[in-house]
């Protein structure tokens, strides 16, 4: 078992004919992912890395029974690609694209929810279930099957931490890079819920960042609902105070969002927080 993504997942790649799409299709195939088709409007009938390309998500699903999609299309076209995939019925949508306008994300998320589609991202490294499948851009070699569920708002920092976990002889059940944008799909609390239920996951790692209140909400949820051990890391502890979104932003956060408030929330929830990324693996070893 794993969360959201398994070896049975039949994945489409939207934007497969672009540089990124092609490069990562190869890497995902190498990882063992069932990449059943690609979508690029106007390029239907061609092949990329041996994968058939279709003009629309609907075509691809009709031919290949795909149930998930990963989006590499550039930001100005990403909303269109996402809505097309959700409407066509995919149940997992991974949006790698960065710099998608927030109002486009505001349009995508409730629509996905209404159709029962789980969104990962945008602006994220994707999702990996080691030994089964990868729908993302993380380096293949850093993963090993294991019992640690990883939830992260970051990309490369996740690679760093996962690499340390793997080097220490442990492994991951699933690694979910939920993305760093203000408006995203699956959030920390939803990912925690999935890992708490997942029998293959025994321990959980949370990689957070300053800004927003996702970590505080996660900490409160852990205290009430999560029985598995959780270890956290928060990036940006020594960053100077960032720009805040006027008074309206401040009032939503009610003073939350700083590194200090996140560390305090984790402490209150009994979640150890690593000072250095490399210490996450050490803390896990003692759980």
């Amino acid at each position, binding site marked *: 078992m794993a969360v959201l993504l398994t070896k049975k997942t039949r994945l489409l790649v939207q934007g497969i004919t672009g540089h990124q799409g092609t*490069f990562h299709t190869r890497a995902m195939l190498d990882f063992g992912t069932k990449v059943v088709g690609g979508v690029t409007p106007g390029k239907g009938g061609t092949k990329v890395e041996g994968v058939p390309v279709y003009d629309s998500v609907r075509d691809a699903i009709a031919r290949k029974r795909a149930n998930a999609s990963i989006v590499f299309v550039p*930001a*100005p076209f990403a909303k269109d690609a996402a809505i097309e995939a959700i409407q066509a019925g995919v149940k997992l949508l991974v949006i790698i694209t*960065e*710099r*998608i*306008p*927030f*109002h486009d*994300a*505001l*349009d995508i*998320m*409730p*629509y996905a929810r209404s159709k029962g589609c789980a969104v990962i991202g945008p602006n994220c*490294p994707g999702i990996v279930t080691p030994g089964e499948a990868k729908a993302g*851009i*993380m*380096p293949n070699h850093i993963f090993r099957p294991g019992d640690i569920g990883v939830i992260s*708002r*970051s*990309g*490369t*920092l*996740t*690679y*760093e931490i996962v*690499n340390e976990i793997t080097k220490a002889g442990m492994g991951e059940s699933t690694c979910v890079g939920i993305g*760093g944008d*203000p*408006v*995203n799909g699956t*959030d920390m609390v939803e990912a925690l819920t999935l890992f708490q239920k997942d029998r293959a996951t025994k321990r959980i790692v949370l*990689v957070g*960042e*300053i800004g*927003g*209140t*996702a970590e505080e*909400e996660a900490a409160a949820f852990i205290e009430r609902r999560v029985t598995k051990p959780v270890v956290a*890391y928060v*990036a*940006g*502890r*020594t*960053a*100077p105070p960032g*720009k805040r*979104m*006027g*008074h*309206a*932003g*401040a*009032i*939503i956060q009610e003073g939350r969002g700083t590194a200090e408030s996140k560390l305090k929330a984790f402490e209150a929830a009994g979640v150890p927080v690593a*000072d*250095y*990324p*490399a210490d996450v693996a050490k803390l896990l070893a003692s759980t």
Partner: protein
Amino acid sequence: MKFLEHKAKEVFARYGIPVPRGVVVSSPEDIVDPPLPCMVKAQVLTGGRGKAGGIRPASTFEDARNATAEILGMEIRGHRVREVLLAERIDIEKELYLSLTIDRSAREPLIIASALGGVDIEAVPRDRIFMEHVPTNLGLQPYVLRGLRAKLGLSSEIGDQVVDVARKAYDLFRKEDAELVEINPLAVTPEGRVVAGDAKLVVDDNAEYRHPEYAAMDQDRTPLEEEAHDKGITFIQLDGDVGVIANGAGLTMATLDILNLKGGRGGAFLDLGGTDDPKKVQDAFEILIKARPSVILLNIFGGITKADTVAQGVKESLDTLGARMPVVARIKGVNEDRAKDILREIGMHSAETIEEAAELAVKVRAEGA
């Protein structure tokens, strides 16, 4: 993109939100026919203008010129005043508050209003604040506006106008890709007119391509930050003297944290992103070198980014600019051995872990000082 008050008011007016008449000048000589009596208001991208003396009343032409002369050139929280707005003075009977923003947790727009405007909204008791989420795809429904009207206790005449402003503000919020639309105060005049006394507008940088007309606006950036922005590079100038460069926002922040925990001080923060374009790497390095750090701390975890491309970019920028500052590098990933060879040629210090690299950077800096 942050908007100066007068720029925000231009946008407000385009959406039919009532704003006081006004003129913008960058020199007292430019004042021809001010809307007297008026308020002379410093145009800077920061709050606290009033307390800093950046807002003054003027009743006569002479007053307006004097106030303008005094306010221009002032520095308010590090922001030099280059323009002032001379805005028609409105008699205010009551000050309201209205804003629209994105609630990231709910992934929905949030409308906030209060009958206690004119002060920081944080200072207003929570039970006097109206707050409601707006379903993005459905928009501002009448029940939300009924709720707002009731909570603020508005008369029907004033209520109609406030609701009209709220509708227009939401329209603006969506169509202009705003992260924040804030009207504080939303003024009610003795004659019963509702007018935006001030205007705050922040538009999502990611949507800049949909609003090219805003791209040329001055932003709250140093010249180097501006250059980086134009090249699509995330660069922030800090107080310390160690230049931190890494790939990915989280990793860059973590590298800065580790440097600070090891006793160093970050002087610049540069996120290379997921690029393996040698030109972009070189652009990024040139910007960092121009910030004149005493040491550069480079931390790359190459998943997609090829380590040798980054190393080549470093070498070329140092050569091009003839810069000879020490570089401490920790590079992991594709072609990492080739990367280390390239950097060894330019006398770079190499480390296996970020902690070691940070310690080394602190040591090299101490030796150089």
